[in-house]
């Protein structure tokens, strides 16, 4: 009996201890407690010109500022620049800078810092694609910077968003080795970062536009999305990007606000147009008409996506206008007709040509491929699926026939030349399609200064590309964000720059 009482007492003590010390949910947070923001990617480094990781970028977006930022509608808004002028030939951009921006080390931001930052980006490989059109950058005076481009491209302005302006003094003092430090002009200072776990930020009180409403922020890496969702539910996490499969547990919970945002990312069945019988345009068109995209969205992506016609969307990408293009909707009968016209009236077995659909196993794309396989079976087409673990390498080298892929795009259709133009072969033009007309139209639109004329050129080009059917675009991803009701958050339609925490505040 005595033994039992002792055991019972020990149990009560253990339970009491856990209850007292528990880090679990329920405990109300004060405004001084950090707002915890989830990132699914581990941090690599705080050296902006050495990383492409989204988690690092999430920190940079709070700590650094850029000359201009791209807004959700695709337009470019001044940030560290007050305004800019473009020369008549489109090759020279002159930026006037704000005069009251200070770095977190107290130094005033000057044109020399802008030149230094851009030169660092031009020297290193990681983000070279954002600055490779720049042939020189020079400080005209303390608050004026002039860029000379090697070719005319509207992407230069869009890409200013990707080059954080660093303090020359800070970088030089640290000999370029500042993996766990940062010094920008942004609304938050980096207090500390453990690259394996979390970054802690605190608001910069001297920020030129006024101190941020949220005083402390923690950007936390969680390797497993299910665990992150539990942390959101227990209150350990405040803001997170939620996977569609995790939505079931959050949908009926009043403690969170949920917002769906269409992003600049498209899921496609990539087609190698150099492989028989995919080199036949009619076969590719049939493959497009046979695809029941809405079913794929509903089953494979829980409905959180919109049907795609192209690897870009008219919702958030300048110049995308489908009004002249033929609408490609799910139509098995039309697919059969096109196949018959292509010389396959009795259907088609892709195995006879060694064509298979390479699939990234274990992802929603695998489910999408399985549904598509059924769609094709309905029109008499047999297509086998095969697992691949190196989709990017295979797609770029053209070492495939068909493949599930996701492609990002930018808020200007001129970016898509890398996906449809000859210059993109070996890169993101997975179709391997080399069409002089497409190249010519992209070049013409890129060098066109008048936005309305550019839009007309793109309208024509888009109709042509959709007719060529170089891929089967499936859907544009929607990202789902959930945040604690104690916050008012703003999220953006970019997978790279989803949050500017300066825009957030505590709910009343």
């Amino acid at each position, binding site marked *: 009996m005595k033994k039992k009482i002792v055991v019972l007492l020990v149990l009560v003590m253990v*339970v009491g201890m*856990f*209850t007292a*010390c*528990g*880090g*679990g*949910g*329920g405990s109300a947070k004060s405004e001084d407690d950090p707002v915890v923001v989830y990132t699914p990617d*581990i941090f*690599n*480094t705080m*050296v902006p010109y*050495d990383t*492409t990781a989204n988690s690092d970028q999430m920190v940079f977006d709070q700590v650094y500022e850029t000359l201009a930022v791209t807004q959700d509608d695709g337009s470019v808004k001044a940030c560290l620049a007050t305004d800019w002028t473009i020369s008549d030939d489109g090759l020279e951009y002159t930026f006037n800078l704000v005069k009251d921006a200070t770095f977190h080390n107290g130094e005033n931001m000057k044109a020399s810092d802008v030149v230094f930052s851009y030169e660092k980006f031009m020297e290193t*490989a*990681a983000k*070279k*694609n954002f600055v*490779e059109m720049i042939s020189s950058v020079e400080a005209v005076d303390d608050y004026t910077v002039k860029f000379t481009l090697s070719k005319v491209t509207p992407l230069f302005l869009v890409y200013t968003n990707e080059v954080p302006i660093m303090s020359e003094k800070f970088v030089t003092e640290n000999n370029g080795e500042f*993996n766990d430090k940062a010094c920008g002009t942004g609304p938050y200072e980096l207090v500390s970062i*453990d*690259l*394996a*776990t979390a970054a802690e930020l605190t608001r910069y009180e001297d920020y030129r536009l006024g101190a941020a409403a949220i005083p402390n922020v923690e950007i*936390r*890496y*969680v*390797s*497993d999305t*299910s*665990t*992150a969702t*539990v*942390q959101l*539910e*227990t209150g*350990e996490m405040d803001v997170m990007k939620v996977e569609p499969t995790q939505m079931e547990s959050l949908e009926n919970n009043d403690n969170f606000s949920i917002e769906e945002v269409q992003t600049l990312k498209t899921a496609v069945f990539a087609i190698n147009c150099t492989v028989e019988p995919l080199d036949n345009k009619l076969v590719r068109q049939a493959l497009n008409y046979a695809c029941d995209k809405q079913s794929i969205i509903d089953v494979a992506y829980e409905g959180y996506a919109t049907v795609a016609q192209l690897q870009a969307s008219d919702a958030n990408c300048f110049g995308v206008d489908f009004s002249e293009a033929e609408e490609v909707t799910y139509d098995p009968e039309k697919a059969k007709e096109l196949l018959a016209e292509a010389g396959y009236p009795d259907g088609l077995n892709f195995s006879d040509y060694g064509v298979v659909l390479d699939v990234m196993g274990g992802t929603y794309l695998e489910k999408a491929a399985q549904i598509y396989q059924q769609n094709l079976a309905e029109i008499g087409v047999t297509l086998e699926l095969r697992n691949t*673990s*190196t989709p*990017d*390498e*295979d797609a*770029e080298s053209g070492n495939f026939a068909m493949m599930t892929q996701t492609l*990002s795009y930018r808020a200007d259709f001129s970016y898509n030349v*890398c996906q449809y133009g000859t210059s993109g072969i*070996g*890169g*993101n033009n997975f179709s391997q399609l080399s069409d002089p007309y497409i190249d010519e139209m992209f070049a013409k639109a890129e060098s066109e200064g008048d936005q309305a004329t550019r839009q007309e050129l793109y309208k024509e080009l888009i109709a042509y590309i959709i007719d060529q059917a170089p891929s089967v675009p499936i859907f544009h991803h929607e990202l789902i964000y959930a945040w604690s009701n104690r916050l008012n958050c703003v999220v953006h339609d970019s997978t790279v720059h989803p949050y500017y925490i300066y825009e957030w505040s505590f709910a009343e």
Partner: protein
Amino acid sequence: MVKYTVKRLLLLIPILLGVAFIIFTIMDFTPGDPAIRILGPESSVEAREQLRVELGLNQPFLIRFFEYIKDIVLNLDFGESYRTGNPVFEDVFARVPVSLTLAFSGMVLATVMGLPLGVYSAVKQYSKSDSFLRVASTVLVAMPTFWLAMLLILVFALYLGWLPSGGVTAGWMSYILPTITVGVPYGSKILRMTRSTMLEEIRQDYVRTARAKGVPEKVVIYKHSLQNALLPVITTIGTSFGAIMGGSVIAESVFNMPGLGQLIVLSIEAKDTPCVLACVLLLAFFFAVVMLLVDLFYAFVDPRIKAKYSK
């Protein structure tokens, strides 16, 4: 004994060289381009080529391997991580405490759970409690780690709110659920191993003699039988420690613990060969040292083995 230990330590050199060569070969010949993994699919062909040159990936395989070994031998330099740009051992050693703590606490739990329950189960053979322990240990060994981890999180973090669901910021409290996750399956293994070896021992003649002489049952079981039954159990504990060190990938991932297992997975995804090599070499070293300690511990448990080592 000292000679034996030195000999075993010297044997580590070819073992580690072999491990390095195998991992280097596997990482090199598996598909995937580190330049694309690091720079992302949007990067230009020129940028990728520049990075390949910076990382020395344009050199032939054997030259790169030779340079890698030369740097280790001459400068103790294990290279820099492709992903972070840090010396790899900075990244790796930052994670060792988490993995060691998890492995150690997991092993303590496994041993404390498995050993006495195994003895109890053997002594009470065919009783209801023996049947229960046999069924429970089979279930726990077979239970997927991921499932067990999620179950523990749901119960103790979400519903009861007693423990944190992940991370290491809550100190020792952070280790309770991961320790149960990694410790319980190995504890069940130890239980089953202890039970079967104990069953053999308690049927031996010397046990019968001890009982006949009137030696108390506790002394017969815990002093005479258990000591002789321990050898295979110690081996299981040793190998389990090594397995937990390198194999707690799932627990580290689900509980968001910055340990070696998580780093290996991240590094393989990024094709970060220097980091993978450093992690695996360190784990191989740990494993070899633990196995050496296990062999040395035999000598203390069994005087016959001590005599053999001395020869």
